């Protein structure tokens, strides 16, 4: 039954519906795979075999009883540990939340449970989603299945690695500046950041509220669409949730898979490419453009002059919001509580000791940056100016979308780098997100789809669409996927080296 883990979610759903396999078999296959490869990959922080199998058995019983089930019912899923899960530990990759078991489910988890997808467990991540390599997790590195000495991207390296290593067919990620798309790019998987407000943030442990967005991680574009359709849509518990119905992302993915993009205008963003982008990454991008043109798409060049300032603005807005969002971790109510080593035990001193011991360096760096940026006397120069840049970035997008239906770029400037390589150089680390951050600042959706290898490591192709037009992402990405897989003779991941099985 080992090959069950190689199937896409859509294929598993079909087999489950046809009664060819049971959810218990599918779930057990993935749990076995986790047991076999996760000691090397370390994608998971918590595995809930019992809970997953119970859900699977329940699905099988309901199916046997002839109950109408969600198409994805019985297909297992992994969830990034920044999303709260009732009764299942949720740490956000931080010591400060070690051992915390939330008393409630995030809205997207509620929807996953209602559709009866067995939840395999929680995936590793940079602490509070702050990082591009998952090396800032308090609970150890996650390794890229393509090369265990390399990073799986971040912050959602655990979700991407789990999917790439066939430990799960589907996963949930969150993307504040690229944390779904960049890991997808460097692991050869598909990752989507929906339109801001498209998927409820209720139950996502916030880093930067105005930028955070949860989305699907998968091995195929269609799978991402299926999961997107499941978790997306309005939620009254999130005031920033869009009231609009979700566009037909699944239909768009199926339509795109025909490989025909006649009449679609692709805007190549001049500012997202060229200098600073690895040569192989640029080459794959050019080749993909040719493939898309062959599919009937028209390619135009667009300019987004203010993207140059996006990274700087992001590193003011994100830490500012994070400094406030992370203030609640004070040792008073839940999670870690540390009393000062000496001196009086006052509330303030317990708070300081707890935060000092519980937060890692990258979190402290951003909390300090954000606290400074919001301080009286600096607010206008920093937070205020950054918000103006944000408006300019939004205008750049609006103008570009006048000329093109979607914008395209490489997802990340490089392929997966070695573990430890950039850990001491925050600026180099931050530059990983240079192509993904503008979408978060503007609230527009983006997808990363594998578009080849450079020296044996995956490269990602990014498609960006106007807000609420997430369906366009799926159409273009599915077309590219179909044509490239035809050329490769199968999925890119099939070219990944086999992982050593540890037992």
């Amino acid at each position, binding site marked *: 039954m080992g090959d069950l883990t190689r199937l896409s979610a859509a294929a598993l759903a079909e087999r489950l519906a046809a009664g060819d396999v049971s959810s218990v078999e599918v779930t057990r296959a993935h749990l076995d795979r986790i047991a076999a490869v996760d000691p090397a990959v370390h994608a998971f922080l918590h595995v809930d075999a019992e809970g997953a199998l119970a859900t699977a058995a329940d699905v099988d019983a309901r199916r046997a009883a002839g109950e109408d089930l969600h198409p994805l019912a019985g297909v297992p899923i992994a969830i990034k540990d920044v*999303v*709260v899960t009732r009764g299942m530990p*949720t740490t*956000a990759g931080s010591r400060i*939340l070690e051992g*915390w078991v*939330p*008393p*409630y489910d*995030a809205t997207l988890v509620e929807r996953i449970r209602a559709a009866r997808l067995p939840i395999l467990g929680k995936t590793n991540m940079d602490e509070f989603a702050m990082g591009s390599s998952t090396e800032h997790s308090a609970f150890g590195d996650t390794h890229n299945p393509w090369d265990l000495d390399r990073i799986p991207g971040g912050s959602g390296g655990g979700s991407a690695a789990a999917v790439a290593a066939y430990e799960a067919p589907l996963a949930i990620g969150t993307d504040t500046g690229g944390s779904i798309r960049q890991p997808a790019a460097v692991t050869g998987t598909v990752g989507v950041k929906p339109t801001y407000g498209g998927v409820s*943030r*209720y*139950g*996502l*442990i*916030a880093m*930067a*509220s*105005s930028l955070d967005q949860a989305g699907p991680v998968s091995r195929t574009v269609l799978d991402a669409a299926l999961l997107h359709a499941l978790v997306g849509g309005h939620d*009254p*518990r*999130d*005031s*920033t949730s869009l009231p609009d119905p979700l566009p037909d992302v699944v239909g768009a993915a199926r339509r795109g898979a025909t490989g025909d993009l006649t009449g679609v205008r692709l805007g190549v963003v001049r500012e997202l490419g060229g200098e600073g982008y690895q040569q192989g990454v640029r080459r794959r991008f050019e080749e993909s453009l040719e493939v898309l043109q062959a599919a009937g798409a028209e390619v135009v060049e667009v300019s987004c002059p203010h993207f140059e300032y996006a990274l700087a603005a992001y590193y003011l807005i994100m830490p*500012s*919001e994070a*400094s*406030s969002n992370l*203030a*609640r*971790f*004070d040792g*008073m*109510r*839940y999670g870690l509580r540390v009393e000062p080593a000496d001196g009086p035990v006052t*509330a*303030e001193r317990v*708070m300081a000791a707890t935060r000092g011991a519980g937060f890692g360096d990258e979190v402290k760096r951003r909390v300090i940056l954000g*606290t400074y940026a*919001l*301080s*009286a006397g600096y*607010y206008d120069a920093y*937070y205020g100016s950054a918000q103006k840049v944000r408006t300019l970035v939004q205008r750049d997008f609006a103008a570009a979308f006048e000329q093109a239906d979607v914008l395209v770029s490489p997802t990340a400037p490089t392929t997966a780098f070695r573990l430890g390589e950039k850990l001491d150089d925050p600026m180099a680390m931050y530059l990983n997100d240079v192509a993904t951050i503008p979408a978060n600042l503007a609230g527009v959706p983006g997808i990363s789809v594998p578009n080849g290898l450079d020296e044996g490591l995956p490269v990602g192709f990014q498609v960006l669409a106007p807000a609420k037009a997430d369906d366009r992402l799926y159409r273009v990405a599915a077309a590219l996927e179909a044509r490239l897989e035809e050329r490769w003779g199968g999925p890119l991941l099939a070219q990944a080296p086999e992982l050593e099985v540890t037992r």
Partner: protein
Amino acid sequence: MTTEATPLVDYDDAVRRYDPVLGIEVHVELGTASKMFDGAPTEFGAPPNTQTTPVSLGLPGSLPVVNEKAVEWAVLIGLALNCEIAESCRFARKNYFYPDLPKAYQISQYDEPIAHDGWVDVELEDGTTVRVEIERAHMEEDAGKNTHVGGAAGRIHGAEYSLVDYNRAGVPLVEIVTKPITGVGARAPEVARAYVQTLRDMFRALGVSEARMERGNVRADVNVSLRPSPDAPLGTRTETKNVNSFRSVERAVRFEISRQAGVLDSGAAVVQETRHWHEDTGITTPGRVKSDAEDYRYFPEPDLVPIVPDRAWVEGLRASLPEMPAARRRRLQAAWGYSDAEMRDVVNAGALDLVEATVAAGASPAAARKWWMGELARTANEQGASLEELPVTPAQVAELQGLVDAGRLNDKLARQVLAGVLAGEGSPQEVVAARGLEIVSDDGALLAAVDEALAAQPDVVEKIRGGNLGPVGAIIGAVMKATRGQADAARVRELVLERVKG
């Protein structure tokens, strides 16, 4: 606690030489069924930490959603204070660490309050009206409550440990901030008190809060500064926090004026600071110096979208505003013909609604006042109850007075009937019937008693026959006694004279 050496200046002396300026911030807890950003209930007095949800506990991942009722009531308050209602406004985060603040920030409004630039007229006891200008009214959430255990008088200093109750965390508040209140001179303490009282009455009239001071539904922070003359620029102010009774508001302002005058007289400068009010000793003391905590790092709350009150909706609310208490008092006083003193007594006794209802049920205003401020006020006082708690309705009081007006009860009987009503024996009519208390004016019944009284006192009869009418009263008294007070005294007199002369 720092001891301050500067002597207080006698109040009258202080206000002769300095011009006090006030600024008052009033927080009112709205009486909504659920919290400001959350569906958690707001029941007062529930066991600790039972009125909470992931949102009001600020659990990781939880998000606020605005309570529409709270917004409506904030707009009502703004309208009642003659404020402009913002076309669009938003929430902001006020960041600070404190154990009772679950998210370590309070969701409040900063640069965009829902209501701004209004005024309210405040009536002083002597009938003078002072117009207080309103700077703004904004929405925010309350914090939880810390209880310090083991220290002196529940204070944090010296406490062994502290308990936190988050039931109150997230309860909707509206904060109303005045512009500087100037030109009130020696009456500053009285104005401060009357202002808070006016707001309390207004909250109740609007039905947005029970506005019970003793429960902390209404809390006042009082800013006081002194300047040498009304032409001088504003002096340095102090802010005395959490003054939670009308009397304390007055006393705290008075104390600060005396204290600041002492500081200024000594040649020193008033320190801009937060001060604590001590109810027991009647003084204020400096609060903890929080120089590093003063920067709240406000920024727009990214979890909430701006509030854009629909103009037609606002106008609908404006049209629905109830009559404000001061206007109502003026209207009723004119209609009832009460003197200022009579009206004040009725208002202070909390009898306004009762008197109004009694008049509406048919009693004359004078009679309604007589009952509620007389016999019923005495009873309430004896029982330690409020007038509203007495088991008698305004309709019953009006019914009782109706019996008096119809000549069926005299004052003494009416009081007996009222006692019966209060004892739960039923309506006045029912008590009259059950106790047989009606005035007897039936000649047949009365004549027997009259004849008996005359026969018992032949000497008196002689005197009357002799033209001395004085002793008639003695006969009437005897008849009244014989009929247990139920005889119609006027008719008895007539009968006595008829018999003696006849």
